[in-house]
């Protein structure tokens, strides 16, 4: 693939986005949308056609492309819509389609947590804040949105910067992959990793062993010190003690007994990144405290006195112009 083609696709997509952002009238909007979608489609085509896809993966690929269109289109709407509330709702769509892609990429746990956390929690917070900080329609006047929502800020420059970034990145990455184009999904490695994860979960391991052979009483280390020996057919041999047997014997576990995504993520979280997990907790706590401190009403008695002297009423909510001026 020649990078130039990729650059052209990026340019078309960029032009569409720029036109959409410029808001120069509804007659362009359709054309701009088509242009943008075409550009994005071209980019996806280039990406897909770079890599020979086996027939077995055509189904997921199709779904993926569908999700991609939904996701990108709603992302574009997030940044082009005049009404902040709609932006937030389009963002929900981005999140949901994103979650679908996660599922396609076999990351079910994260997909669901994404929906719960983003769509359920964060976006709701955004909506609350939008309500809190939204001016009443009377202030806005004629149009359906305030000026700063309607008029984009130097869209051309921003779009150029963004798409130059994607062009150089994509251009370099996808143009090189051309000659080395083959699937690098390393099934062996995944299996090994899975078994290794399982070996770190003794209880689950014992459970899986019992599922294979109910007489197993304990799983012990093998003679070479490892818990599990992975076979070429993706099965694994472990050393177990059975009821009534003095010496440990081998037991073969079928690949179907590998742990699922959720347990593996959980395992990784607590076994491999425990400190990060703790830190994340602290960050959340701090964020909570910070939010409380920041969003608290910034009024005090002195402030009220000052306002009283100025002939103004008591502070009802924090937003008072005199205060703003005083702070400048």
């Amino acid at each position: 693939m020649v990078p130039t083609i990729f650059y052209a696709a990026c340019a078309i997509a960029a032009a569409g986005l720029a036109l959409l952002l410029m808001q120069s009238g509804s007659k362009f909007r359709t054309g701009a949308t088509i242009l943008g979608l075409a550009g994005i489609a071209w980019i996806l085509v280039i990406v897909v056609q770079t890599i020979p896809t086996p027939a077995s993966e055509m189904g997921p690929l199709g779904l993926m492309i569908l999700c991609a269109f939904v996701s990108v289109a709603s992302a574009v709407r997030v940044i082009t819509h005049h009404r902040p509330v709609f932006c937030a709702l389009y963002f929900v769509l981005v999140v949901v389609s994103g979650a679908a892609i996660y599922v396609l990429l076999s990351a079910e746990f994260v997909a669901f947590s994404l929906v719960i956390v983003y769509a359920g929690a964060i976006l709701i917070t955004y909506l609350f804040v939008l309500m809190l900080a939204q001016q009443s329609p009377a202030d806005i006047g004629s149009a359906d949105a305030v000026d700063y929502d309607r008029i984009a800020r130097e869209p051309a420059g921003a779009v150029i910067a963004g798409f130059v970034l994607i062009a150089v990145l994509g251009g370099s990455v996808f143009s090189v992959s051309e000659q080395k184009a083959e699937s690098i999904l390393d099934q062996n490695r995944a299996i090994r990793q899975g078994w290794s994860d399982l070996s770190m979960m003794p209880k689950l391991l014992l459970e899986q062993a019992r599922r294979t052979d109910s007489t197993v009483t304990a799983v012990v280390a093998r003679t070479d010190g490892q818990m599990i020996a992975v076979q070429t057919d993706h099965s694994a041999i472990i050393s177990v003690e059975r009821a009534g047997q003095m010496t440990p014997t081998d037991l073969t576990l079928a690949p179907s007994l590998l742990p699922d995504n959720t347990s593996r993520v959980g395992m990784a979280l607590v076994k491999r990144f425990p400190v990060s997990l703790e830190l994340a907790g602290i960050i959340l706590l701090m964020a909570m405290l910070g939010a409380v401190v920041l969003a608290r009403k910034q009024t005090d008695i002195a402030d009220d006195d000052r306002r009283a002297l100025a002939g103004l009423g008591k502070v009802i909510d924090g937003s008072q112009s005199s205060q703003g001026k005083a702070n400048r």
Partner: protein
Amino acid sequence: MTQLTSIPQAIIAPELSWIGLAMLLPLLAAVACALCCALRVKGKAAAIITILALGASFGIIVKAYFAYTGPVQVPIFQWLTFQWGTSQFQSFTANCGMYIDTLTLYWMLFVTGLGTLISIYASEYMEGDCGAGFSRFFFGICIFLFSMSTLVLGDNLIMLYLGWEGVGLASYLLIGYDYARPAAVAAGKKAFIMNRIGDLGLALGIFMLWANYGTLQYSELFAAMNNGGQTLVDWDLSVIPFLLMLGAFGKSAQIPLFTWLPDAMEGPTPVSALIHAATMVTAGVFLIARMYPFFELHPQALATVAWVGGLTALLAATIGMAQYDIKRVFAYSTISQLGYMFLGLGVGTTFGACYHTLTHAFFKALLFLTAGAVMHGFAGQLDLRKLSGLRQLPGWRIVSWTMFVGCLWLSAFPYTAAFFSKDAILLQALTSVRADFRFLGWLGLFTAALTAYYTFRVWFRVCAGPLHFEPGAEVHHEPNDAHDTHGKPASASVAKSTHAFHPHAPRWAINGVLLILALGALVVGVPAYNNTFAHKDNWVQQMIAGSSAMEGAGLAEDHGSQASEEHPTVLGMDAHTGLTVVGCTASIGGILVAWYLHLRSRKSADQLRAALLRRWWIRWVPICMENKWYVDEIYHACFRLPMWLGSQILAFGDRHFLDGVMVDGLAKIPIAVGKLFKPLYGGALQGYAATMAGGIALVVAWLSWIWLRGFN
């Protein structure tokens, strides 16, 4: 010049280190005086300590004189010594040690002797400052004596340099003793700086000697000269005498560097007597006498010394004739007499020079001390027009008559000691084979007449004639009185206070010292009588002959052998006789003129001056003489002013060009570049973000370009 006879080799005699006490005692006394100063001692403790220490060191020198058998080198301790290789050149040796030969002893005798006497004098003279600067004054005297002893006794040129600068320091501190007077401070500064110019010459000369001979020890240097002047480097040796000479000219106030000495009279009179007349200024003579062999490295070196000396003598005498301040007259006479000494050294009679140094030390100290007594008694009055007939004043007889003695000696009255010493110099000049030296001899004779005139001008004015005096405003508090009133009539206010003023006559310490000095001035003539009447080597000649200056000692046998070949003549007579006649004429003639103009009819002096000033073709003579030939002004215009202007320009350039344009200008480049990109950082949040995004895009583009290039 004949080739050198061998300088006696010094032997190392550590057992003589007790002579070092002559250096150490003044130093200890200086420390004690500093303590007195710090403790604010009210009494005369400092003076007593000083007198005792100096007296003791005089005693030590006398003892050393009697114990003297031959040149010795006395190591004391290692001072500035290190080496970095094995050969002689690869070391630098300047130890604290002494080189004692007759020249050393000769010098030390009168330095410590006069130092003691003048300290006694000062203990009375300075008593007004008891509790204030008294201890500081004696601290300076002690430092001076220490430095002078080091200069003379030291066994190498670095020790000499130490003393050389040390006496400069003492001179600086003592001239600026009365530090509240700007004139005194300026004079001290001037003295130090002008001496520094000479010192640079001396230092370079020392380097040159070191580079060439690999040593700075006198004994080794003389040994090298005895061995035919073997050198390590074949550099041009002939600059050595000129460099050393520069140092000597600075210290002894010779022509290019003489202007500091008259100004140095701002110091207290004992200082003028001790440092600026008797001892320190003769250090230049000592240096040349000590390093005499090296002055023959260039054929014109000694001639230069002679010319400088002769011209200085004349110039200073002409200035001295026109001064009204007694101390200034004596200061110029000092320069003039030093000129004679250099003339003597230059024409080849170290004997004459050293002898004149000795006689001059006595009579000039005497003269200064009498001037000091007058100043002390008349509240700082030194203008010779405002004092008259002091010899009639009760209590001032000793001062008057000792001054008379000093004046006789200074004017080289026949058969005084100074007559002989000057005679020795002029004789050598007049009988020289070189025409220019003979010319210098006649010039010296003319100068002698001028000297007699201006000397007795002072005496006839101040001590003779009708009694009349006006007190000065106390010089210690009023800076401008005594020194800057030349040519102005006495102010009415001063005249008014005359009635109430009672000059306080000097007491025993001043009178005693004056008498001793007058006696000394008589005594130093004894060797000359010995020489003149017995026709054999006198004491001074013997002293000189035993040292490095033996070349010009003029011993009788040399003299005799020379005489047998061709006896030089002066005015067709035998040289001795002729010179005696001419010298007497000059001296007595000068005195008679002074007698007429300044005692017999004082008006005629003013008339003469007025007559000279009326005639345009001659008026420059008195004007220039009174204004010291404008030497200070010329120096100011030629050196100080251009340098000062240059400095201002440099300072301005440093601040505004080098720092302002170059450095700050360079610093402005990044500022300008920053201004270029300033719009990107206008404060709006997205501006920063856009810049960042663009930057990332650029960096990624660059990286991927590199990456792609690496793979294709």
